[in-house]
């Protein structure tokens, strides 16, 4: 079983992001579970949400304490990463990984998702786009599955769907390099 932590700010869409990832994994034929850190949501405040992906049915219902992956949508929140991450931390940042000062055994990957989101969507909507980086770096989920999930989750939101798909593809390419 793989556990993924999403760190973001209230309003940034970390919860939606974990949900889209869960749908994508399910579309890929796996079992999944997505849930927010249970609490009151405030705009701008740090928000975390979680996703579990497994080949078999997931019974575990405790909170996520240690994860394989973390996706940090806002690099200023890095210090709030209290859970231990064992594999990879994906950070939305224009810095280089070696410039990130973080005491962790996990690999650090930096992708400038905000830049791509601004180009493709015109607004700093990074939550969906970030999943492109996750797919490219971890290969836990397919780009195809993610695109299906975006249609399911955002089906009624018109041009935003296409823009997000373009952004996720661009981020996927960028992170695959």
């Amino acid at each position: 079983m793989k556990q993924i932590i999403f760190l973001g700010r209230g309003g940034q869409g970390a919860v939606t992001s974990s949900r889209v990832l869960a749908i994508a994994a399910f579309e890929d034929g796996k079992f999944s579970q997505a849930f927010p850190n249970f609490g009151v949501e405030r705009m701008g405040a740090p928000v975390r949400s979680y996703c579990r992906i497994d080949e078999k049915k997931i019974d575990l219902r405790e909170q996520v304490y240690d994860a394989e992956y973390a996706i940090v949508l806002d690099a200023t929140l890095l210090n709030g990463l209290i859970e231990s991450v064992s594999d990879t931390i994906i950070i939305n940042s224009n810095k280089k990984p070696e410039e990130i000062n973080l005491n962790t055994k996990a690999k650090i990957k930096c992708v400038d998702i905000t830049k791509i989101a601004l180009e493709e969507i015109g607004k700093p909507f990074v939550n969906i786009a970030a999943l492109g980086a996750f797919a490219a770096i971890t290969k836990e989920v397919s780009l195809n599955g993610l695109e299906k999930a975006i249609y399911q989750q955002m089906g009624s939101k018109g041009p935003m769907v296409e823009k997000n798909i373009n952004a996720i593809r661009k981020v996927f390419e960028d992170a695959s390099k």
Partner: protein
Amino acid sequence: MVKNVVISGSDAIAEAVKLCKPKVCPMYPITPSTLVPEKISEFINDGVLEAEMINVESEHSAASALFGAYAIGVRAFTASASNGIALMHEILPIISASRFPAVMSVANRTISGPINIWNDHSDAMSERDQGWIQMYCESSQEAFDTIIMAYKIAEKENVSLPIMVCIDGFSLSHVYEPVQIEDQKKVDAFLPKYNPKNILDIKNPKTFGPIAFPNSFFEFHEQEQLAMKEALKEIPLAHTEFASMFGRKYGNGLIELIEMKDAEYALIANGTSVGTTRVVVEELRKEGKKVGLIKLKTFRPFPKEEIINSCKNLKAVGIIDRHVSLGSEGAITLDVKAALKDEKVRVEGFISGLGGRDIDKTRIKKAFEILEKGGKGIWLK
């Protein structure tokens, strides 16, 4: 058409309610139950559910309108949680005494105070004596299935009691996971049209909700108790029928036994803590420990015989209670102790997960450890 989707526990309940086609849905939003009325009002607005959504001014009114809907003889539904359930307190026993087969979903949240919006079972457990059948769910799929079964069981002529379908607030109500949404025709075949014999009708007037003097109140309560006994028989029957039609089952509908055949120590749990305990049992079994798990799906009526049969050969049994009857013990612990009074097995109650504190693997392992070492039940803080 059968659909496989990733949805929340709340959405799963709303989808199941849609398939059961209630005609009246009086609902008042309260965290963490709000997602259910939100989704159902969406269905009604989109015209996929033909029902009257009553925007009541409180949960007291929601329960009263639920009573009214059943008095005129239609299937109805409401959802609530926490202090909302507490506000319904006055009406809940009136619905059950009138023998209306109402179904309500509860997104379990503690009863304040101090004010707290998170999960424990104190809202539903506080209403355990009001003549409502109570069923707890472990997964979104189970929540979906239990709603459909609940209408079937409640509407059995010999049962005719209302049912609370309980899902853990946030820990299930807000968790997105795969759910299979069943076909309308299949659900219709399982759940026939609701056809009550006694309804409010000006052409054939009857009196509902009369006063019962001391010379009759007793008998009416006795009837409810007998109906609860009937429910102990009807729940497994409805459950078997459901399993044969839809291919999913949850023990016998009352309890589910996990690794209990040769178990020496076992825990009894309900709600989402069952899932985590499953994982712990699997891990401890790999270490060679003879541990098991009893999932208490139905809490009211209390499946006493099933509990005796599954526990009597154990060395010790522990109960994970997400509620405490202050000044005494956990509600389930009290019932299990009463059931096992003539058996040799040691019974220890563990209070855990109050006000949203996580019931994680570490705490459950600790409970098993205490059981094995012969220790006393504690508060697993």
